[in-house]
């Protein structure tokens, strides 16, 4: 288990869930699996915390849910992106990239502060 335990910023989980659902509807467990997979298990959050986030997204109208059947033939609740959820993902992703770019640029700076 790697030590780099990342503390999730407020709202980050939401964007990642939206991203997970951007290909096709998934149930909660599949979202967890995907998150762990793409982050190389670096994200160690309680799996349960995903669910309030999903329900909140549903309440805000970005995600909708439907009962379906899982790969092994069990009833599972599938979440999918709504059009407004997709728009939200797009704008969130853009602002994340800009934010990350700025932080990266700052951290990569070589010029030291000029005395006045």
């Amino acid at each position, binding site marked *: 288990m790697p030590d780099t335990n990342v503390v999730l910023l407020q709202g980050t989980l939401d964007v990642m869930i939206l991203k997970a659902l951007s290909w096709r509807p998934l*149930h*909660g*467990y599949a979202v*967890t699996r995907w998150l762990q997979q793409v982050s190389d298990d670096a994200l160690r959050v*309680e*799996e*349960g*915390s995903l*669910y*309030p986030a999903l*329900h*909140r997204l*549903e*309440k805000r*109208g970005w995600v*909708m849910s439907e009962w379906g059947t*899982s790969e*092994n033939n*069990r*009833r*599972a*609740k599938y979440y999918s992106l*709504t*059009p*407004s959820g997709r728009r939200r993902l797009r704008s969130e992703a853009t602002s994340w990239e800009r934010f990350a770019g700025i932080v990266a640029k700052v951290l990569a700076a070589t010029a030291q502060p000029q005395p006045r």
Partner: protein
Amino acid sequence: MKREPMWRRYVRLRGPDHAADVDEEVAFHLDERAAELRAAGLSADAARREALERFGDTLRYRRECVAIDRSRARHERALEWWLTTWRDTRVALRQYRRSPWFVFGSVTTLALGIGATLAMYRLVDAVVLRPLPGVLRPQELVHVAKPGMAYPSFRDVREATRATAHLAAYSYRPVTLRYGEETTRLTAHVVSGNYFSVLGSLAALGRPLVESDDAAAAPRAVVLSHVLWKTRFQSDSAVIGRVVSVNGSPATIVGVMAAGFRGTSLTAVPNLWLTVHGWFSAAPTYFSRLDLQTRDWGWLVMLGRLQPGQSPSNLVAALKAQSIRNRELFMQRKNAILEPVVISSVAAASGGAGGARTRSFLWVLLATAALVLLLAWVNVASLLIARGMQREREIGVRLALGADRKRLMRQLLTETALLALFAGAASLATAYVGTRLLGSVTIPGWGSFRDLSLGVGLGSAGVAVSFALGTSLLFGLMPALRATRRDVVAAITHGGFRAPRSARMRDALLVSQVSLTVALLIGAALFARGLQRALAIDPGFDPSHVAVTTVDLGIARYDSSRARTYLDGALERLRAIPGVTAVAWADALPLFNGENIESLSIIGEPPLLDDQRFVEIAAVSHGYFEALRIAPKLGRVFNESDHLTKAGVVVVNEAFAQQHGKGKDIVGRQLEVGGSTLTVIGVVRDVKYHRLDEQPRPFVYLPMARSVSRAGLWPVIALVRTDGRHKELPALVDATLRDFAPDVAPFDRQWLGDHYANALLPQRLSLLLLGVCSLLAFAIALVGIYSLASFFVVTHRRELALRLALGAQPQSVVRQVLGHGLVRVGIGVVAGSIAVVAGMRAARALLYGVEPTDPWALVAGAGLVLVAAMLAALVPARMAARMDAMHTLRQD
């Protein structure tokens, strides 16, 4: 096709069990995770533990999820409710746009009915029900309506009943107020020194009157009403301490009461307040024989504040005990113990006897308004029911096409609620206009409601809207409910017209409409006949072109010799006005209130019978008969020199001559009237003295010149007749009199003709009210009859068409339709006629001898309704007779 918005899909997901869903979701997650771990080689137990471990606090997450889901469901439900309501409203508006006359009719009728009733209720509320402004805890106040108290008796009784109540006393007196150059006549409230402390009322400016003001040696103090302060003193706050002249004596202004304060009076707002001693020391000279300390002069009315724990009956007992212990406390007449009458509620306490009259008049007005409301209600009910029946078919179709019954009901509910909202708003507007109108009305002899703050409050708004809502819900939803419950197939195939219960209800409504209409029409006809008869009555005098005004020389503190000079000089000045043909003074006029009675005996005749021992009199100056054009019949009337003759002279009327002359000539006979011996010099025509429909009664005219000491110091009326050239004669007469003597304020100036017209005011008002109501009712009933007949035609169209197809004459179809409607109209006419004959007996006094069973009125009222009903029913009947029978039969 428009894309279905996203929220609609959520809406359909309503009503799931959120907790179970979340549980299932969590369980699925745990199972999947455990399965995966097992596949990786863990034991079942270990896998399960690990899965739970990774999930975290299951209970917490579950709780959070359920809470989120529930709040989402709540939001969606609210959203859906608003959207549905909005859609229903739009549908309803579209419905109403298609039938504007239905909306107009029901909204206007409801608005008129509710608005009129509300306005009247506000008036009754302000006068009768609302607590008096500026009075502390009015529910503790009691009013001792009888007997009137002499001042010393009041002082004694007040001390003796102190344990039961704090008593104060008051009376109304006219006063003249002189400030600067202008003298005006006003109404003063003469009160005991503790009056304001018993009422718990404070002054807005300065102080109210207090106990120490009410003493013989105290300087005269006066408290102004807010209105007087505003109009006469321009709201000058430096007015406190200023000296004015009351009845010619100086008085210091000590306070101004708050706006709206009117003591315990009902409608009349006193202009100023004086203490008993303050007023008496400036009392008119006709009180000069009286002593404030006499116990024979019961002129004060008592009111009191009950001590804690005491009841009005305790006060009655205490007062009675006092009257038995000390008879003279209560007594003018020595042999009777008067029963004190205590009116407990302050609403009833206000206004005294005159108040009772005003109150009953107001209740009558309210009842009339309520009758209009009832009519409006019946009308709207039948409109709504008819509409409901019309729509049964439409509703049936919608149900058959799979419309949700609940949704349909909701739709209809929205429609009725919308109608009620319109009607409620319109009612409030009507009520607002109505209260403004009522506030501007001044009824001669009754007073004005201007000083009461009438307004349409929140409470009225609630009442108006809920009444409108109640009506429209009751009658709007009933048919809808029935329609939605009914057999769908029957509703479509028969057009929903097999509705016996609802039809009976409609019939009942029509019958009551017709009977109300007939009752109102006959009532109006009776009043019209009464008025016509009253107008045809010759009053015996000619009121046209005569101005009258009143002066009160006693209040100006004249003595008899000054009074005589004034009366003679004023007549000269009035006679000098160009165009004046006759001038006179009199202490009473025909058809004015009040009567003067004197004892009578005829010299040389045996004592008169009991009912003839007293006779009504008036003191008049020479010129009186000319001014009123009362025709002399025998002998002569007064001339200028009559007061010079040693023996007194009188003029009598024809009824007197007939009753006492016994066929012989009455002129030259001697009478004893009120103790003085007088010679009859002439006989004049009979005049209507009190009521237009009275029988001629004996009357004696005394010359005023001889009796100034008796009559001239009381208020006397100046009469001025012109050739008709002056339009503002009453004002001119007033100005002339003011110019002649600035210290005498003439009052109550008017054209005698106007006063004469006012004698018929109750009849005119009743006729107006009934006339308007009956026309309203008439229109409503016609609509009802028309729609009943059309309805009959529509429901029976198959049967009628079949008969026509089989060769029936069109006339027989017309007859059948008419018969159906007229039976119901006939029942209503009979019921209404019976009701009006019974009801109008109470109003007989206003009818001038027209009997409630007057055939003309009955025939006119009932006949009008019958004929109009026939015509109204004829339209659909003719249409039925002319229909294309085969086409109709094929239609269904």
